[in-house]
């Protein structure tokens, strides 16, 4: 029997995968993708909870968060392109001019 808790577990695993991806990958684009995975795991929690309470609010919330995430992606890609134009790299480890 699949309960809402199972959804939470799956979501947590997805979240952890995303966080690990963010930590381990050097490519800025892939790191960004990992964040999207984390956001979607949160959406999973929202939708699963909405289902378990039989309330629509959580699903609507998920919809909003998807839209907001899209906006974030738009901005993110733009900044990454600006960076690539300046430094010809998308390696996060090479972007360490600001430090100390």
């Amino acid at each position, binding site marked *: 029997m699949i309960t809402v808790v199972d959804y939470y577990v799956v979501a947590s695993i997805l979240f952890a995968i995303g*966080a690990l991806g963010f*930590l381990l990958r*050097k490519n800025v684009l892939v790191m960004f993708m990992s964040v999207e995975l984390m956001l979607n795991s949160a959406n999973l929690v929202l939708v699963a909870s909405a289902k378990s309470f039989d309330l629509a609010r959580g699903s609507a919330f998920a919809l909003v968060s998807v839209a907001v995430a899209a906006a974030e992606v738009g901005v993110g890609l733009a900044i990454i392109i600006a960076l690539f134009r300046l430094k010809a790299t998308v390696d*996060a*480890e090479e*972007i*360490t001019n*600001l*430090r*100390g």
Partner: protein
Amino acid sequence: MEENLLELIILIPFASVVVQYFLHRVLPARLAGLIACGAVLVPFLLTVVVGRGIGAAAPQVPAVTATIASWLTGGGLEVAFGLRLDPLSCAWTLVVTGIGFLIHVYSLGYMHHDPGFKRFFIYMNLFIGSMLALVLGDSLPLLFLGWEGVGLCSYLLIGFWFEDMNNARAGQKAFVVNRIGDLGFLLAMLMIFQTFGTLDIAAVTNGLSAGHAQGTFALGDARITLIALLLFVGACGKSAQLPLFVWLPDAMAGPTPVSALIHAATMVTAGIYMVARFSVFFALAPVASAVVAIVGALTAFVSATIALRQRDIKKVLAYSTCSQLGYMFLGLGVGAYGAAVFHVVTHAFFKALLFLGAGSVIHALSHEQNAMKMGGLKPHLPRTHWTFFVGCFALAGIFPFAGFFSKDKILGEALLGHGWLFPLVGVLGLITALMTAFYTFRLYRLVFTGPERLDAHAKKHLHESPATMTVPLVILALLSIGGGALSLPAFAHFDILGDYLRPIFAPALAVAGEAAHHAVNVEVALMLVSLAVVIGGAWWAWNRFARGPGDQLPLPQGGLPFLLENKWFVDEIYAIFVVGPMRGTALLAGFFDRYVIDGIVNGLARLCDLCGAVVRLLQNGAVHTYALLFIAGAVYLVCSLL
């Protein structure tokens, strides 16, 4: 009417600061200096006018109060910008503005050629204003405001002549050490607020007296003791007591009038003021009082030993200031509150005189401060010489100069006190008196008599100081001679200051029990003993340094054989029983000062730097490091739930 005058007392110095700051391009230097002097003289006159009205001893503490504006409210806190002129604050205000005015006038001459002339007077006026806020404020926050303000001015003035960062260390040291004291003060303030629900000083002290009468606060109540101790930590920082006294000798790097005003006559007595202000707390906390007495006596003793061999004329006076402040705390600790305040007043007279005299000497010798390179200045600087000479008598405490009466009052209360502690600190005080007389006359002999040891450059410019500098010296010398008349010994039944202050300390003395009145012959005998001790010390130094520094010219190593050559019986006893241990103590104290206290202060700074380096090392610019720390923090927080 009186309220308005009271407000003016504190507003005038600040107004003068504002005027001088914004018009500093326009104002001629001379005029700026005169404005600054006037901004101190007028408050002094106003204080005299207002203060006369509160002389009458009533059951209620007589006072004039004024509220300038409402200040802090909220969180159950109601604090106004209120001023309160009662006998205690009146005494301090008169000293601050009176001596302050003389020192301002003196500075007109002393700082005449300095490019920072105008800046100097702005800081000085700012200092006077802050000090008045400290003394006149009727609430703890206002007191703290003044407390910080004088600290800031002191810091600015110590660093006055410093051109680059490294040399500003002295100023920074003063600031940091004071901060440790402030921490105690702040905590005490928070605890007082928690206990009494108000920060109004009169309300707090009245509340405590009433609470004691109703049995809420027993004698030796732990909370009251803790508050008293924390207050004393604050006082230790500001008034340069063990172990926080290290900053004061370093502070001598500032211009000499600053040393006279801030580091001798006024600011450093702020700690005394605070303890006197909260005397009820200390009366109810015998442990805290004992700590005050012991710390005071030890400071007096240790600083005096260090002063014995100092070569820098200002350093001698600086250590002497620490030592005299120790006397005052000793007095407060043994319950001789009135005597301690009396000593504050006389000390302000003669220490300001000595510092200004030293300044005059330094001025005449083109900034030479080493007493080993002076000598024989008596004919060249006649007015400076005789005023300084008077100051020496007062500091040493020789009858009938001012220092004699105040010092003797403290020593008398201590030596004749009950238990074992009071006589013990009294004896320590007596030994200190001996050393005080010794180093005072050593300094006098080294500077003014004996063979001239000036270098050529200093000799060429040798001249007596102008009248702006010598007139304040003369006035201070007269005060040092006659100041003792303010409060003659009990049997003389002439005690203006004591009567004036009585209502202030009545609650504290009611708690602790009024000191027993001693028979006249006991008091007189005691006076004679202390006088004998002091004169002995003075006479010995007088003879020993008749021909200049003698064995003290080379560095201290190998001084002991010379001492043994000396045929004097007293000298030999002194050498065997006193000088040896004293030299040890002095060495130890110097060592303690240099390595332990400095070490702790510097070590803390270095530790902070090290931690800062670690923080900056982690900040390596890589997003991955940041994310790793982020996740580590997240994992820690989540795990802390389990």
